């Protein structure tokens, strides 16, 4: 089920310089959202900017009827979003898309986040921890260009995850790419599953690493997305068909979470 409704702004919580957690009151969405799902947001009543924007659901609290999304102020759309005062409403369409599926029969769940990919994995981490059998480990690998762009890692630590950080400029943790941390982690012979969210270039490398080692991997893909409900065909993801050839699936309906091995990278 999906809804288009007027969600009330509860708070713009500062999470990093110019980066916010927007908490919205919208009970039907808060009650039904699953990790990996997203909403399409429209803060304006006019047609400029034109499109709604998709945002992954960061956290949801069904009891309070609230959920949150993460945004960084860059450009006219996010500026409009940031100007919405507490108590004002904005149009939200959702929850949309499929969700991450916890893999059974593994000893270790590895979350891999690049930049703004961390918040949506936090929702998954909460779900994984609540159902985690004894002896299973939760590992969070977070990468960003600089340390101030790392967001929401405390929540992973609070859930008991082992958190490892990579920054491209070396300002925190390992100096380099988060995919290097994944290689290192997977060199440990522990049956693992990988869940990744971040830039598509990162997801491509994550997919390759997991394929080489036959590790089950789910990735949340980003694509330009006009409608969010599967009508326009804009957010096409190339899928390798088992019988050969390519078909395009919609990131908004058949995704945004795909099994890494089914995506055909261009």
């Amino acid at each position, binding site marked *: *089920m*999906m*809804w*288009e409704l007027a969600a009330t702004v509860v708070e713009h919580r500062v999470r990093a310089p110019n980066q916010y957690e927007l908490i919205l009151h919208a009970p039907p969405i808060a009650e039904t959202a699953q990790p990996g799902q997203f909403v399409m947001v*429209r803060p304006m009543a006019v*047609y*400029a*900017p*034109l*499109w*709604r924007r998709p945002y992954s659901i960061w956290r949801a609290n069904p009891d309070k009827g609230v959920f949150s999304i993460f945004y960084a102020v860059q450009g006219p759309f996010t500026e409009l979003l940031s100007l919405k005062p507490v108590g004002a409403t904005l*149009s939200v*369409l959702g929850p949309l898309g499929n969700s991450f599926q916890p893999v059974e029969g593994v000893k270790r769940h590895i979350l891999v986040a690049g930049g703004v990919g961390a918040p949506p994995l936090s929702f998954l981490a909460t779900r994984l921890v609540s159902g985690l059998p004894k002896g299973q480990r939760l590992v969070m690998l977070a990468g960003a260009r600089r340390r101030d762009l790392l967001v929401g890692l405390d929540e992973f630590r609070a859930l008991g995850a082992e958190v490892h950080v990579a920054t491209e400029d070396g300002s925190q943790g390992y100096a380099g790419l988060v995919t290097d941390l994944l290689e290192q982690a997977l060199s440990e012979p522990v049956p693992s599953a990988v869940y990744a969210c971040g830039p598509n270039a990162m997801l491509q490398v994550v997919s390759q690493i997991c394929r080489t080692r036959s590790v089950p991997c789910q990735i949340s893909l980003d*694509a*330009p997305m*006009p*409608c*969010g*409900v*599967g*009508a*326009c*065909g*804009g*957010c*096409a*993801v*190339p899928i390798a068909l088992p019988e050969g*050839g*390519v*078909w*395009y699936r919609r990131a908004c*309906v058949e995704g945004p979470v795909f099994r890494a091995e089914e995506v055909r990278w*261009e």
Partner: protein
Amino acid sequence: MTDLRVRLGRLTLTNPVMTAAGCVGYGLEYAPLVDWSQAGALVVKTITLAPRAGNPPPRVAETPAGMLHTIGLQNEGVETFVREILPRLRTLGVPIVVSIGGETLAEYRAVAEALSQAEEIAALEVNLACPDTEAGYAEFGRSPERTTQVIETVRNATPLPLIAKLSPHAGDPVPIARAAVSAGAEILCLINSPWGMAVDAHTQRFRLATAVGGLSGPAIKPIALYAVWRVRQAMPETPLIGVGGICTWEDAVEFMLVGAAAVQVGTAHYMQPRVLTEILAGLRAYAESRQLERIETLVGALA
């Protein structure tokens, strides 16, 4: 109470607000949010003979007051459409118009024949913007000769009411409009998406995988209004459907004033899924506040 019915040749609609082909998919995707039985008609996306995978991504790009798209007619093909999708469309309680496409005259004919054997299709809308592989990939709709050939081919293949959706790339739309009507189109729909382009200065790449795509949204409304007005002046007897950037009931009224008997709403659904019913409510209030007996009295008042 204003009578909202509009007559487009043999096709009578309960009101003049339709969806635009390609924009709302098969309509089913929006069914959880939208009551399609309110619409004058639901125009489903272009169906071709064989399934088409469509174009590689990126397929869409946002532009000022508009969007570029190059979906590449991704669809399941006419056989699957008739067997699996059409039965579900019949439950929506709205007249179904099917947009048809092809890369050859034979393909247009085969799609039209297959759909004519299906029940409960209100009309066919011929998408003339398809790549014409027999003439080197220009659109069919660019030339009056090819327009005539496509429409004649479809006309001979179907008894259904026929809408020709005209390309905006033919210069003066009137010769193409006349060609389509002479060949058997009963209704004209103006306009299909003009071609456009977007370039990313930072990456020095095109923003669409195919470089060129159709432009939709409020950006094209003035072009569409002009095309409707121009054809209405030249061919006042031919029923016209206006399409291009319609987002509000005022937009719909404007198209009717310059000669459109009905309008199609497309891109606006992405911003507001229930836009069609909003437009319809606005149109009804406008007509009643002016004590119009029939909404049709607006049509062409400014043409």
